[in-house]
Structure formats: structure tokens, C-alpha cells
């Protein structure tokens, strides 16, 4: 059912150029752009990367990543000093670690259950998980405040974003690069190669002596950790968290970001997130008013149309389109290789 995926390795020069550009971005763009476009794209990209990591390397398309990041975000907001929630008033760094541990443990536990199903069933179970997390926090106001937890205490590295968004931007950038490189490196380890084996041929993996369920469970745990990182960063970004920010719409948005970028390459996560953030912010200005059909309020329609076009044009998303363009540019038309002459006649 899945197309055969080869997770190509990225190019270092391209990464260095992108990171260098990102590093000087604060000099080039407005605070608004730095915050609402770039910082948002970076943390949203991490959330999408956790989905793409599972899809590309383990062949598991999960809708549970927002559930996990919701848990991480809520855990963080409850553990530190904040307006609403439990207000445990921990040190923010300690709360950060606590939130990631909780997200990873929940991910491992839930992954252990979900790992037994595949394809559409896995999709449904993970979707149910995200919905469950949303309803849990909507209803347990002791943990989510009335309408959210506000004025969440942030760790020192973030600085005070209202006056200077640059430190938070750099923190998010560094974490995004670490996530990208870390997941890439992981894919080359014994565990990471095994995950790709599970993606391509689970029956062969069993025949070779691997415990496929355990591999899937751990892959889900790793993705949960990454989703947890995105969840905590989203709280840093918003300085608050509400049940509404981890609802079904957000689950679908993260899926859309991943699909727009491309489900088969990690880079796609940030390409998709940047595209999404740009459309989210600027579609109001770009889109002309056309009766009731189009208009500034039609952000979701626009994203939906883009989603549809990309899904139809390239299952590999924008990254896939880029790859096939580059392939055309790089390989000039060659005559087909001559068929080898058989040595014996059948």
C-alpha cells in the first residue's frame, strides 16, 4: 500500500546554507516575521517531524502526535508557575525535563498498544488517542484551567519574548537542528535500520529474529519524545496553552504540514511548516474577495486546496516536487543502457 520509500540522506552544504540564513534572519526580518513565521514554523516543523519520522522510517502514519505534544505542553504548564492549572511552581528546566519524560513514557505505553495494528487501524487508534487527550484536558479543568493556562513561567534562555523575540527564536532553531540531525543519525544506527526493515518487510524482520512489535513501540516512543519537545516549545511560543490548541483541528493541521512538506523526508517537516505559517499569516492579504467563494477569511479553504493539489501532484509533497525537478536538471537525457547479452541461450 505504501509506496516504496528510500529515505535519502540530506546534503550537508544545503543544511549549512539554510542554517546560516536562519542564523542571520533576525538582522533581515521584522520581529513580527521572526516570531509569527519563523519561530512558529520551527516548532510546528518539529511536531511534523515526529510524524514524518514515524511515517518515513517506520511506515507508521500517526495522528497521535498532537495528543502527545498536548500532554507535554500541559505537563510543562502545570509543573511551572502559571495562571491556572496545578501551578506546581517547579524550576522551568526541571519542568521541561519532567514534561518530556511524561510525554515519552505515555508515548511508549500507548505505542505498545498501537504497535499491534497497522495502516488504517493504526491511523484510527492514534486519532482516537489525540481526541481522548483533547477531551481529557477540556474536562479536567484542574489541569487545564478554565479556558487554558496563562502566563506560563518560561526558562531563562527564552528571555522575555514580548520585548525581544530573538533568544526564543534561536532556542527553537537550535532545537530544530538538533532534532533534524538526531533523527537522521538515529536512522543509521542498528535500531534505525531495523525500523526501516520493519517498514519494508515486517515478515522478513520476524524471520530474521527481530521483535517487530518492540521495534514499533520504541519508534513510537522516540517520536513521542520529539512531539513532546514540540509541545513544550509551543508553550514557550504562546506563553499559554489551551485545550483548544490541541484539538482535532490542530491534529489535522500537523498532518497537513507534514503532507505539504513531504511524508518521506524529514526536511519536509520544516518546508511544510514554513509554507503553512506563511499562508496562515498572509493569505488574508493575498487572497482577493470574490463574492462568498474566496476572501481573507478563507484560510482553511486555501490550505485545503493546496493540500489537495500537492497530494495529487506529488505524494512526496513539496520536497518530492523539488527532488524530481533536481533529478531532471541534473541528469541530461541519456540513451538507455544496452541490454546485457545473455551468455547462454535459454
Amino acid at each position, binding site marked *: 500500500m505504501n509506496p516504496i520509500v528510500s529515505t535519502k540522506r540530506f546534503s550537508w552544504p544545503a543544511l549549512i546554507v539554510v542554517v546560516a540564513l536562519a542564523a542571520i534572519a533576525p538582522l533581515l526580518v521584522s520581529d513580527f516575521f521572526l516570531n509569527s513565521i519563523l519561530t512558529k514554523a520551527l516548532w510546528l516543523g518539529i511536531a511534523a517531524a515526529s510524524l514524518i519520522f514515524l511515517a518515513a522510517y517506520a511506515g507508521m502514519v500517526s495522528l497521535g502526535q498532537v495528543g502527545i505534544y498536548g500532554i507535554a505542553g500541559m505537563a510543562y504548564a502545570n509543573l511551572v508557575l502559571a495562571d491556572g492549572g496545578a501551578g506546581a511552581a517547579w524550576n522551568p528546566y526541571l519542568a521541561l525535563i519532567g514534561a518530556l519524560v511524561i510525554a515519552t513514557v505515555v508515548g511508549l505505553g500507548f505505542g505498545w498498544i498501537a504497535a499491534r495494528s497497522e495502516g488504517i487501524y493504526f491511523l484510527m487508534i492514534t486519532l482516537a488517542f489525540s481526541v481522548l487527550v483533547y477531551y481529557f484536558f477540556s474536562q479536567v479543568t484542574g489541569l487545564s484551567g478554565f479556558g487554558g493556562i496563562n502566563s506560563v513561567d518560561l526558562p531563562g534562555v527564552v528571555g522575555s519574548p514580548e520585548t525581544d523575540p530573538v533568544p526564543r527564536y534561536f532556542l527553537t532553531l537550535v532545537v530544530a537542528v538538533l532534532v533534524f540531525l538526531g533523527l537522521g543519525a538515529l536512522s543509521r544506527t542498528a535500531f534505525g535500520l531495523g525500523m526501516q*526493515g520493519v517498514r519494508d518487510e515486517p515478515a522478513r524482520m520476524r524471520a530474521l529474529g527481530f521483535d517487530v512489535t518492540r521495534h514499533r513501540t520504541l519508534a513510537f516512543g522516540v517520536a513521542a519524545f520529539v512531539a513532546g519537545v514540540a509541545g513544550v516549545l509551543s508553550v514557550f511560543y504562546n506563553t499559554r496553552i489551551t485545550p483548544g490548541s490541541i484539538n482535532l483541528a490542530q491534529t489535522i493541521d500537523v498532518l497537513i504540514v507534514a503532507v505539504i512538506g513531504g511524508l518521506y523526508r524529514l526536511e519536509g517537516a520544516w518546508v511544510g511548516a514554513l509554507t503553512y505559517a506563511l499562508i496562515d499569516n498572509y493569505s488574508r492579504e493575498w487572497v482577493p474577495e470574490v463574492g462568498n467563494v474566496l476572501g481573507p477569511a478563507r484560510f482553511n479553504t486555501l490550505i485545503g486546496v493546496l493540500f489537495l493539489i500537492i497530494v495529487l501532484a506529488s505524494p512526496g509533497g513539496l520536497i518530492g516536487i523539488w527532488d524530481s525537478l533536481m533529478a531532471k536538471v541534473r541528469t541530461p537525457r541519456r540513451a538507455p543502457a544496452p541490454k546485457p547479452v545473455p551468455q547462454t541461450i535459454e
Partner: protein
Amino acid sequence: MATPATAAEPAILRLSGIDRRFGGVHAVRGVDLEVRPGERRAVLGPNGAGKTTVFNLISGEFPPSSGRVELFGHDVTNLPARKRARMGLSRTFQTSRLFAGLSVEDNLFLGALGVGAGHLRMVPSSKDGRLREQARAMASQVGLDSRLDDLVMDLSHGEQRQLEVGMALVAEPKLLMLDEPAAGLSRAERVKLTEMLLGLDESITLILIEHDMDVALRVAQWVTMMHDGAVIVEGTPEEIRGNQTVHDLYLGSGLISHE
């Protein structure tokens, strides 16, 4: 050539009264089979005879509807495939089941890793180096040393079949089961495969499903003939060659008429 019936060593594999149904299809009916250490056994029979299903029952792909599977002297009837693999059983699949998105070397790396420890290792280690050496050595044994870095999806059919055998061998099995390894190979490739099988370490027990009589009867010391889910004849290659039932079945299905 010693026949299994006279050998004194205990069986490495024993099937007793194995049955397997798929809904209405009775794919395997009351099969008894004994294979001794170091033996070279061929399983023959027309398409649909139940040969692959017997392999799946031995490797633990699914359990038998009834009957008992013993491997290396242990009852493994209810043991999952991965545990049987770790006991020293390797198999290939009739239609290649390779990791299409990984390179030849990475495929063989996983083949070598599977029976070892450290499946969940998330950091590079010197153990990886040893597994990679094993993988590369196996690649040259099956004639793929020039394609180490190529993705499996870019290999030809013949190369994929060679890798399929390599994937089973790289785990250094005690019992090796090959399901039609020569299917779709050119004559030259089949000759190479036969040479490779004849050159296998004597300690390896081999069970081979093969339609190509040239390959099967050259490699095997003892032949089990299946039809309609049951074993109908057992004997030496010479006996099988001269057996009328075998001829009827194979000539009837046109399998050796063109040779």
C-alpha cells in the same frame, strides 16, 4: 550416500502429523517429516502442493491447525518465528522479501544483526563494524560485492534472488530453508547457485524447495515429494528420477517437459 532412515543422530527437524487449513483449503494434510543434521533435503511437488505452507509452519509464520513441530530437539509448535530464527533457523521466501528502501549492505547488516544482540542500539558501536564486515563478506559470496551501496529496489530480479539467499546465510544458520531460490534465474545464474549450494559448509542442514530438477537433484541427498498437501514419495534422487508417479505429476504439469 547415507539415507536419513539409517542415520543414528537425532533429528534436527521433526514434523509429526502436521495439518494446516486456510478456510476451506486443506493446504497441508498429515505431513510427517524428519531431517537429520547436515542433511541436504529437497522438497518437490507441483504448484499448490503445500510446500511453501510446510516452510511457513516450520519457520513459525503461522501455527499448524494440528500436529507438532520440533526443531533442534525442542517442541517449537507455539514459538513465534523470531525465536525459531534465533535458535538457528534461516529461510528465504518464494517471492523475495527484501528491504526495498535499504542498500544491499544494510539488508545484509540486518540479516546478521537479527540473530545477535543489540537490536535496539541507538548509538553507533564497534559491533556495527563487525556486522558490516559480515555483511560485505556475504555480499561477495552471493556475487553482489559490486552493488553494496545500491538500493534493493534498483537490483535486477536475479540479483534480488541472490540477495534473498544471502539474507538467510548471513545469519550463519544451522538449518537453512530455501524456497525456490532458482526461480526466474538465467541458466548461468542457476549454475552459480548450484555451485554455491554444493559448496555450503557440511554442518549446515539444507531444505530446498525447487522446481528445477537439475538444481534440486544435484544438491539433494534425499527427496520428499508432495502432492495435494501430503507427502507421496520419499527417496534418493535416483529413486525419484525413476519414479512413475513423479514423472506423471511433473510431466502432467509440464514442469520438466521442456528440459
